[in-house]
C-alpha cells in the first residue's frame, strides 16, 4: 500500500498564507485519506495494483492548481473571518462605548480625578467603567457567534481603547514640537495618566465583559 500521506506532502509542499500554513497538516491528512480510500476501492473492485495507483494519482488532478486553490480558499476564509470576528464587532464596540460615554456626559455624569487640583492625573468616568463590561459582552457575543476564538474576541472588544492608546502614542512625540516649554516629566506623567484612565481601565472593563459573556453557557436552540 503506497504511503499516500508522504505522496501528498511531497506534491503539496508547504502551504503559504497564515491559515493555510497552520492547517497544512490537516489538509494533507484529509487529501491523503481521500486518495487512500479511492485506491482501496479500486483494489477491492479488482483493479490491478499498478492501474489503481495510476488512476488514484490522476484523481488528484493538477497539484499546482490544487495548492494555489487551497491557499486562495484559506486566505479568502482568513479575510472573511477577520472581518466577522474582529473588525465588525470592534467597530460596533467602538461606536457603542463612546456613544455610552457621550450619553453619560449629556446626562451630567462628572469625571473623578485621582489627583484633584493637579494638572495631571487619572480621570475616571465611573458610570462608564461600570457600563463597559456590557459593551465588551456584546463584542464577545458577536465575535464568538462568528466562531471567533480567545484572542480574537478580546481584540475585538478592545478596539476602542487600542485606537485611543494608538492615538496617544502618536500624539506623544508631537507634543515635543507643539509644547516645547512643558517639562518632559510632565509629558510622561500625562501620557501614563491618559493610558491608565482611557486605555488600561476601560480595557479591563471591556475584557471583563468578554470573560463574563464567555462563562455564560450556550442555551440549546429550540426548533419549532
Amino acid at each position: 500500500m503506497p504511503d499516500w500521506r508522504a505522496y501528498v506532502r511531497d506534491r503539496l509542499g508547504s502551504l503559504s498564507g497564515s491559515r493555510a500554513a497552520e492547517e497544512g497538516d490537516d489538509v494533507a491528512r484529509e487529501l491523503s485519506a481521500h486518495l487512500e480510500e479511492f485506491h482501496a476501492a479500486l483494489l477491492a473492485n479488482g483493479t490491478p495494483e499498478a492501474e489503481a495507483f495510476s488512476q488514484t494519482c490522476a484523481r488528484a488532478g493538477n497539484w499546482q492548481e490544487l495548492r494555489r486553490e487551497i491557499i486562495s480558499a484559506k486566505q479568502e476564509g482568513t479575510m472573511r473571518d477577520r472581518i466577522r470576528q474582529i473588525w465588525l464587532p470592534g467597530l460596533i464596540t467602538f461606536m457603542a462605548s463612546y456613544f455610552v460615554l457621550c450619553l453619560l456626559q449629556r446626562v451630567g455624569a462628572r469625571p473623578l480625578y485621582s489627583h484633584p487640583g493637579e494638572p495631571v492625573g487619572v480621570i475616571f468616568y465611573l458610570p462608564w467603567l461600570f457600563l463597559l463590561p456590557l459593551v465588551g459582552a456584546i463584542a464577545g457575543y458577536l465575535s464568538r457567534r462568528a466562531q471567533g476564538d480567545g484572542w480574537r474576541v478580546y481584540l475585538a472588544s478592545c478596539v476602542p481603547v487600542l485606537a485611543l492608546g494608538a492615538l496617544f502614542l502618536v500624539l506623544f512625540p508631537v507634543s515635543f514640537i507643539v509644547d516645547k516649554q512643558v517639562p518632559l516629566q510632565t509629558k510622561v506623567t500625562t501620557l501614563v495618566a491618559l493610558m491608565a484612565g482611557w486605555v488600561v481601565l476601560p480595557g479591563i472593563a471591556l475584557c471583563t465583559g468578554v470573560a463574563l459573556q464567555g462563562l455564560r453557557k450556550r442555551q440549546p436552540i429550540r426548533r419549532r
Partner: protein
Amino acid sequence: MIRTELKRGTAELAILSVLENGPLHGYEIGRRIEQQSGGALHYTLAALYPLLYRMENRGWLHAEWGTGQNGKRRRSYRLLPRGRKMLKPMRAEWADLFRALRRVAKVTHA
C-alpha cells in the same frame, strides 16, 4: 464525457445536494456524486477540496474531524442552514439554464 469547465460549475449544487441527507467526508461526497450521476460527474481533488473549503468559509458547511467506520480519522462535512437555504435558488437557476439551453441549442433529455 462532460468537460472539466462545465463540471466545475455544477460542483456547488452537487455537493450541497449529496449533503442534504446527512454529513459525509470528502471521499464519500465525491463517490456519491459520481454514483448518483451515473459516472458523468467525477471531481479531482483540485476541483473538490478548494470548493469545500470555500463553502465552509461562507458558512454553508461545517467540517469536523471524527473517526470513520474503519477507525480512521476523517473530516466530515455537514450542511448548515445557510447552505440548505442556497439549494432552492441554485436548483431554480440550473433549471432555468437547462430550459434556456433546450430552447436555444435544442438540448433534450437523453
